């Protein structure tokens, strides 16, 4: 007998994380970051589903970077099918990715990370004294949202992406309508980078291994080889031979490592360090004006890397739109076949690697997804090890804030909220 129970429950929408630092004397003996990440059941969710459904299913995994999930899935499945959409379809995909980078970096830089540097509780408090910068940030983010809406069909979870291309290609006029706001956002992003360059960046450096895609001619979005600052140079299909994910007892998130070496960093600072020579003229000039050039090993300056990538993505979006001619067909098709495919693309927060095995009918037999947050987890913990003595010397509220800022350098999926960390500092005598 069915019945309805009335409930009166209101949840605040925020991330969820905890950091425990243990000390023996004055030395840290353990640093444990617990970030909730969906365990592997999303991979189980995909088994038995038709390959054509995958882009729409994985788009729901993350509201901030659905395009990244869709693009990695499309590239992996197209790899299995043996097709490689080019021309206008490829340009439109880069444009869609520009939109996601703009909205994601815009949100992170202006709403979440800048308040950390300026000493505000959140963007709401920051807006009272820096209204014009917050307004510029919102304008930049809106320009990215408009690209995703025009190309993806809606703002938050695009529905126009399919294996082989798009369900519908936009008209020249639809894309041209975006140009005024994009041009204004590009000028604002250049101004904002100059403003952010004056922030007080904590003195902190580490010898990172940076990992990112590298393409022969372009700043990377969806294509290229996986390279590292310590000599890795591989195809996406060889990822598992060089990287592994480890279970750690204190967290649901897996920790990715370079086999035989340990933690590594992916994301904007990694891309910037490994692909500076592929930045467009405008982004490169903006970086050089503030003397921000590789090598940079200060994770707090990932803020500037995001600022440079905002300029890069806005500039590239404008160039794609200005030279756009609609494709003859919005997508190419291919018959399913038994195969395994690999795809790796650059989500705003770092590399997102997918692998799918399909049967003859195109049903997914196996799926593996390695998100950027799990790739950066160990790296974040290593940063916190180095930061631990300074945190222990601070008042608890200030230490929590500084630890959040250090985690936010990596823009993990959890930091969609301003305050997300429960910090415990324990001492063993």
């Amino acid at each position, binding site marked *: 007998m069915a019945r309805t129970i009335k409930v009166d*429950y209101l949840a605040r929408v925020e991330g969820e994380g905890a950091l425990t630092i243990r000390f023996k004397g004055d030395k840290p003996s353990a640093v444990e970051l617990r970030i909730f990440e969906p365990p592997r059941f999303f991979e189980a969710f995909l088994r038995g589903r038709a390959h054509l459904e995958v882009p729409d299913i994985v788009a729901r995994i993350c509201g901030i970077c659905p395009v990244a999930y869709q693009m990695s899935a499309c590239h992996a499945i197209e790899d299995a099918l043996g097709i490689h959409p080019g021309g206008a379809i490829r340009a439109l995909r880069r444009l869609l990715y520009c939109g996601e980078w703009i909205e994601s970096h815009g949100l992170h830089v202006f709403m979440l990370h800048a308040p950390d540097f300026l000493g505000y509780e959140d963007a709401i408090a920051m807006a009272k004294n820096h209204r014009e910068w917050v*307004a510029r940030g919102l304008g930049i983010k809106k320009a990215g949202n408009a690209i995703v809406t025009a190309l993806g069909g809606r703002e938050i979870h695009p529905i126009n992406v399919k294996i082989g291309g798009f369900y519908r290609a936009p008209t020249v006029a639809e894309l041209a309508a975006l140009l005024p706001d994009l041009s204004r956002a590009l000028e604002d992003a250049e101004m904002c980078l100059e403003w952010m360059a004056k922030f007080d960046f904590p003195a902190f450096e580490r010898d990172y291994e940076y990992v990112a895609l590298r393409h022969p001619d372009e700043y990377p979005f969806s294509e290229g080889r996986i390279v590292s600052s310590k000599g890795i140079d591989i195809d996406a299909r060889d990822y598992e031979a060089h990287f592994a994910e480890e279970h750690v007892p204190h967290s649901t998130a897996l920790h990715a490592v370079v086999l035989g070496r340990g933690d590594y960093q992916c994301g904007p600072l990694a891309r910037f360090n490994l692909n500076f020579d592929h930045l467009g003229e405008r982004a490169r000039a903006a970086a050089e004006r503030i003397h921000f050039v590789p090598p940079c090993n200060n994770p707090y300056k990932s803020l500037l890397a995001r600022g440079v990538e905002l300029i890069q993505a806005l500039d590239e979006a404008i160039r794609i739109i200005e030279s756009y001619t609609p494709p003859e067909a919005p997508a190419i098709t291919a018959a399913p076949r038994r195969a395994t495919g690999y795809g790796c693309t650059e989500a705003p927060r770092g590399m997102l690697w997918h692998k799918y095995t399909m049967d003859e009918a195109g049903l997914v037999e196996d799926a593996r997804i390695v998100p950027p947050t799990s790739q950066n987890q160990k790296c974040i913990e290593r940063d916190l090890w180095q930061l631990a003595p300074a945190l222990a010397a601070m008042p608890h509220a200030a230490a929590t804030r500084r630890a959040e800022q250090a985690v936010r350098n990596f823009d993990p999926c959890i930091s969609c909220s301003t305050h997300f960390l429960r910090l415990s500092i324990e001492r063993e005598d």
Partner: protein
Amino acid sequence: MHESSLGKEVLRLVLARADEEGAARVCAVRGWIAETERLAPEAIAFHFEAHARGTKAEGARLDLALRWVEAECKTCRSHYRPEHHLLLCPACGSTEGTVLGETGLAVEAIEVE
């Protein structure tokens, strides 16, 4: 992907209430989410369904209505929809305002057997 944390939190609440009521199965969950949160209801439902596998809420629908929340500018009294909880009046630029409604995510009813 904090949609996943939210889906898990909603499931935790729903299962606790179902247990309190002695229900054998949860069939549906209804509530709302404020547009200020910039989250798609179906994405939270997707994570809820994934977390619910193997529990008495397996197969239950999570229906969240998207609710628009307005703010009133204290300076010029105009009404607008704040983005990301930011009080920034598009008419006069004031950062002083009042949110006219609840934000966040709410669960209002659970259908059980």
